[in-house]
């Protein structure tokens, strides 16, 4: 019990005292996971829309792959991205391994299928006649897409929340491709793993609480937008 109370005390202290090292970790976590979420939106929403409406051979196969990838184990992604960026790997020339960019890539791979899968499902549950009505209104493809996105904005925000929640809390891929280097690639999850490993439970608890608060406040913001008109 003391352990938890100490942890709580330390968390408050770390936040209130504006500990430089902790702030760097928080900011990097936000930067990496925020960028990854943004990239996953840019890939996942158009991809989900395309999978929902286009007809081509193998569409169902790809849709099943996307749905499976919604639960992709981060360590598998970490391994895959590491191999790609490793010396002699296909993307070795980019020299990205153990940089925040590598973490963004890995987290994007985790979040994009989540966003794509939810987008696809939400588009497919629209009344097919609504699409006919939008065409009858004289919409171009782009106008149609805009209207459909507006119509599915609630599930799409849920997709963004799920994507962000998935990557801000993952540790396997980040530690593998980032390396948990202080001041460079250390984020809240990797720091928590390290502090726990060292037996610094109070710091680990403090970091966990900060992580939870961070995830909660970002999700709260998105939820408020989502529920505004309900």
């Amino acid at each position: 019990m003391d352990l938890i109370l100490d942890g709580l005390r330390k968390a408050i202290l770390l936040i209130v005292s504006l500990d430089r090292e902790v702030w760097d970790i928080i900011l990097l976590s936000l930067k990496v996971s925020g960028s990854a979420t943004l990239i996953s939106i840019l890939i996942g929403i158009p991809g989900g829309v395309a999978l929902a409406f286009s007809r081509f051979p193998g569409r169902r196969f790809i849709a099943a792959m996307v749905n499976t990838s919604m639960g992709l184990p981060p360590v598998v992604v970490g391994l895959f991205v590491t191999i790609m960026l490793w010396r002699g790997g296909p993307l070795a020339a980019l020299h990205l391994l153990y940089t925040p960019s590598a973490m963004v890539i890995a987290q994007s791979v985790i979040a994009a299928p989540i966003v794509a899968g939810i987008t696809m499902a939400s588009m497919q549950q629209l009344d097919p006649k609504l699409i006919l009505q939008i065409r009858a209104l004289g919409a171009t493809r782009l106008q149609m897409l805009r209207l459909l996105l507006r119509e599915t904005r609630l599930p799409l925000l849920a997709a963004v929340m799920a994507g962000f929640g998935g990557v801000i809390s993952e540790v396997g891929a980040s530690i593998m491709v980032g390396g948990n280097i202080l001041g460079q690639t250390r984020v809240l999850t990797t720091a928590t793993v390290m502090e726990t490993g060292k037996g610094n439970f109070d710091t680990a608890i403090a970091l966990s609480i900060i992580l939870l608060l961070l995830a909660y406040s970002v999700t709260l913001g998105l939820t408020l937008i989502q529920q505004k008109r309900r």
Partner: protein
Amino acid sequence: MAAILDARNLTVQRGESFALNVPEIEIEDGEVLALIGPNGSGKSTLLQALALLLPPLSGEIVFEGRRIGPATGQQELISLRRRMAVVFQEPLLFDTTVFENIASGLKIRGLGKKEIAQRIAPWLDQLGIAHLAECSAKKLSGGEAQRVSLARALVLEPRILFLDEPFAALDAPTREKLTDDLEAIFKKTKLTTLFVTHDRNEALRLGDRIGVMFGGRLRQIGAPEEVFGSPVDEETARFVGVENILHGTVVSCDEGLSHVSVRGADVQVAEVLPEGEHCLICIRPEDVTLSRPDEAKKTSSARNRLAGVVQNIVPMGTLSRVTLQCGSCGISLSALITRQSLRELSLKEGEPVVASFKATAAHAIRK
């Protein structure tokens, strides 16, 4: 009148079979063409093909002089669709306010805020939804939602309006009120309209011309009195409400009056028919009058008079349907009479009755 929309040799395929096969259909400027037919007869498919929402397998559509075929580009199709408007059976509103819903088509056409507001205001009043303008479309009743859908189409001031069973999902009083309003709008705007419905009364009320569809084909198209009075085949006759269809053979024809033998009974039809030909005699139930046997001669001047026995009486709102079996020939006839007539005649099942109908009320379909 000039045709605003004209389609020739239109076929649409769904799966293995043809969902539509229409050699020719024209919609004239300013008319309301009502398309009726049972479910699955291809009415909505034809509407969607004409509204350029469904690419036909073959055929050609000419809209305001512009030929549309398989080679017509997407951009041009969009610009042609922007001169049309469609209202479906479901309101299909967007999850936003009523005003924004009505504005959606205008926004797609790139109109400015001020112009949109100016164009919408009169339609909000006309359709009685001004008080709902800022409401969420998701909170509307079925009738209100369909009014918004109509407003969204009408505000576009289309050259042609397509209505695909717009009232089918509404309750009777709401449907009545909306039909009244739509009738007033048609009278005022003279808007060219293709109106699909399975309700023949709606078609009769709103249509300047009526087309009847069966099995993907347009069986008959013409003025309401022509379609309802002189259907071209048995299925069309039944669909337009002809309940009495009798098989007979023409015995003689003299001065425009044909005598047709129906199971031995003589039925006179005010049409020229070739002797010896088999035909179907169509008599609408509302054209059959009933009287007591002792009063039949006094009360009716109709040429056709058949004595029979009341089989059953079915109340149908303000009217009652009386079915009778004619004694000598075994012909079964239906008559629609008012409740008051029923009371006055004090008819009961099993009682004798005389059915009369004019020779002009009988229409022959030649086989």
